[in-house]
């Protein structure tokens, strides 16, 4: 039989669409046009009317209010601190960076606090919004019975999924980018540099992609949007709270109990659960950034957690002085508590933004100084030399790049899987010329039915003699049984 693929000549509808099909770009062109077609359609619906602009306005107002709140809070605190001499003079409040005795680093502290606050709030927003925008993408098409119209077109399902994902992400990215001017306020306060802000946005963008793909995957996996949304947010909770809880539980359970002895702190070896447990937890990446951008070169609570997660040793004091890292030999660290008297020099950790400050180091105190490049302690206690300085800080980029890599790879993977789940007839076939292997494998056990079923289930009426179906083509039947 000859193909009659060419369109019949038509009276009104002009245009050789047929040629367009096989025209420019080949497979990639088809894929890309699918992305733009679906993306344009989705964006059109999303950005229509005032809704999008109202949402952005409210979002920015909330973020501004939040930042202003942080600023006001810290200002009040510093005024109080300045008014109460006992805090000013006697007590070392240096472990809260910026609450220094002279109040000199207050500005940088405000900058850091606003940066940290915005980072956490935006992480939370992206964590909620990105999956919420995508968790209905495919299932809504099913519910509204529009999916058949799409699947019956030559649209590639990967292009379709990617188009929907990109349009949802465009909206999330727009929200993230809209916060850039606000976040730049931190530059006015100082303490946080543009490169820190860029790191923060890298996490947010990767997070949006990963979580968007997660919602898309759930949407393609189950039939109903409601189920997809619930599953998505369960997964989000598992990735954030769940992963932290499991990590902590693992650490506590597996850490051996150590005892300290006479004046020397015994160097215990706390167990370190696999760091990969937290690779999809954006908050740990946030903590990494918050830790390493603190005016003191480190921030105790977040750094403590990140150090524990990544196994990064760190040592820090309290008095921030300088934001530049001196070119020193890296990888030397101190462990343990030193006694009274004397200072010791500790090199800056690799890639850390350090503060140089003299830290009173005890001569004759206890502790171990390690050089990471050489195995074993290089200085045995009590050898800390009096009169030397310790450099403070925490190595940068120990954790958050893992977040970014994690989100991006999970996003790519889930997008690919989603495109396979959109429609049963649109799955990749390993052997393209034969019926889908998925289908064949499933139908194989049912093969005996192929011969017996028609006679059984259908009354052998056939009075009209018109029914010839049970006599399937032998080729077809053998294929069913194979």
């Amino acid at each position: 039989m000859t193909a009659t693929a060419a369109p019949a000549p038509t009276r009104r509808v002009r245009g050789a669409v047929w040629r367009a099909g096989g025209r420019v770009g080949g497979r990639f062109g088809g894929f890309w046009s699918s992305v733009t077609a679906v993306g344009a359609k989705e964006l059109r619906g999303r950005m229509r009317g005032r809704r999008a602009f109202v949402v952005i306005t409210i979002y920015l107002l909330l973020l501004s209010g939040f930042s202003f709140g942080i600023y006001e809070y810290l200002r009040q605190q510093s005024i109080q601190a300045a008014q109460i001499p006992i805090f000013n003079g006697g007590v070392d409040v240096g472990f809260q960076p910026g609450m220094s005795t002279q109040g000199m680093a207050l500005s940088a502290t405000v900058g850091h606090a606003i940066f940290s606050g915005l980072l956490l709030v935006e992480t939370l927003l992206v964590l909620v919004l990105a999956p919420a925008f995508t968790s209905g993408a495919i299932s809504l098409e099913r519910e509204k019975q529009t999916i058949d119209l799409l699947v019956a077109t030559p649209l590639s399902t990967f292009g379709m999924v990617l188009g929907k994902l990109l349009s949802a992400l465009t909206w999330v990215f727009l929200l993230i980018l809209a916060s850039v001017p606000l976040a730049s306020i931190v530059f006015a306060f100082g303490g946080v540099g543009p490169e820190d802000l860029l790191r923060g946005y890298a996490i947010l963008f990767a997070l949006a992609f990963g979580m968007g793909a997660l919602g898309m995957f759930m949407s393609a996996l189950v039939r109903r949007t409601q189920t997809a949304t619930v599953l998505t947010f369960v997964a989000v909770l598992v990735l954030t709270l769940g992963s932290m809880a499991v990590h902590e539980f693992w650490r506590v359970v597996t850490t051996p109990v150590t005892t300290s002895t006479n004046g020397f702190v015994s160097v215990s070896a706390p167990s370190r659960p696999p760091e990969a447990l937290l690779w999809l937890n954006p908050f740990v990446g946030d903590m990494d950034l918050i830790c390493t951008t603190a005016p003191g070169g480190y921030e105790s609570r977040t750094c403590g957690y990140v150090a524990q997660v990544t196994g990064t040793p760190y040592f820090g004091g309290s008095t921030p002085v300088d934001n530049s890292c001196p070119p020193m030999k890296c990888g030397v660290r101190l462990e343990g508590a030193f006694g009274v008297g004397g200072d010791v020099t500790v090199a800056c950790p690799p890639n850390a933004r350090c503060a140089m400050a003299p830290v009173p180091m005890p001569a004759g105190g206890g502790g171990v100084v390690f050089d990471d490049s050489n195995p074993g302690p290089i200085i045995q206690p009590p050898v800390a030399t009096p009169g030397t300085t310790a450099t403070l800080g925490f190595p940068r980029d120990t954790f958050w790049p893992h977040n970014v890599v994690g989100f991006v790879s999970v996003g790519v993977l889930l997008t690919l899987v989603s495109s396979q789940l959109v429609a049963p007839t649109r799955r990749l076939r390993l052997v393209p010329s034969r019926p889908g292997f998925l289908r064949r494998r499933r139908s194989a056990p049912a093969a005996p039915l192929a011969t017996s079923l028609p006679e059984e289930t259908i009354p052998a009426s056939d009075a009209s003699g018109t029914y010839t179906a049970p006599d399937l083509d032998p080729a077809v039947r053998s294929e069913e049984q194979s």
Partner: protein
Amino acid sequence: MSVALRTEGLTKRYGRTLAVAGFDLSVGEGEIFGLVGPNGAGKTTTLKMLATLIVPSAGDAEICGFSVRRQPSEIRRVIGYMPDTFGVYDDMRVWEYLDFFARCYRIPARRRRQMIGDLLELVDLGEKRNDYVQALSRGMQQRLCLAHALVHEPPVLLLDEPASGLDPRARVELRELLRELRAMGKTILISSHILPELEELCTSVAIVDRGRVLASGPLDEVHARFSRGSVVKAHVLGETEDVARAQGFFASQPEVASSELLTDGRIELGLVGSDASTADLLARAIRGGHRVASFAPATSDLEELFLQITARNDAPSDSPDPGLETREVAA
């Protein structure tokens, strides 16, 4: 006439249920082919298999020489599919709807604009161009859906219950539209359980029930083979006794298998024989002095045919009619 679409043992099995049990259909180019059957006969499943939305369990179908199983992406370019139930997107204007589908078929931007205008004019929605799709009436949405199936100028159209849920006026308009499409040279496979709408439209039909093709072929051919007479309603004027006399007359005639007196001077007659003998019967009745005001088929021909064929299928004990056989699949 070359064949635009044919199926060979097309089968779809869901668990132990056979939704479609080996359809052998053949649709010539330029035909309007009606798939007639009650709900659950397998019409929608068949059309979905043809539209590459469902993978057949067995058998295959060819559209324009492409195999549904092996060349689904080629199939998608040569068919325009209109599902029986379909949704519309919110927040989308009529022209955007068509523009979107035109993009799906990779129609260049410069051609889309012109084509959308033409299509909207064709389906009589030119004035609704900037309206939101969800604000259109049901009939308009049906026409828009039909227009969407035409954006890539497919030679074959698969229309699943295109007239369901339409008011009579919209149905007539749809029929006109389908005629117009046929005049453009499209091959149309249309499914329906509303028979009168197909009767005036189709060149060929397949009568299906419970997953099987009971009869298929050109409409008149099927009719000639399967029809065992028809039911006619006669309206006789006069007093009650005149009507009773008329009924007595009809009952005594050889062409009349049954006669039943309805109210208001109407008599329902079950007739056997050809149209010619029916005409003779009417002529004799009028010569006999019966005042026949109307004498018309009680149901449409296709409806009657459908009822007869499916009834026969329901009662397996019926003696097989040697004159009946399916039209062989055209090579």
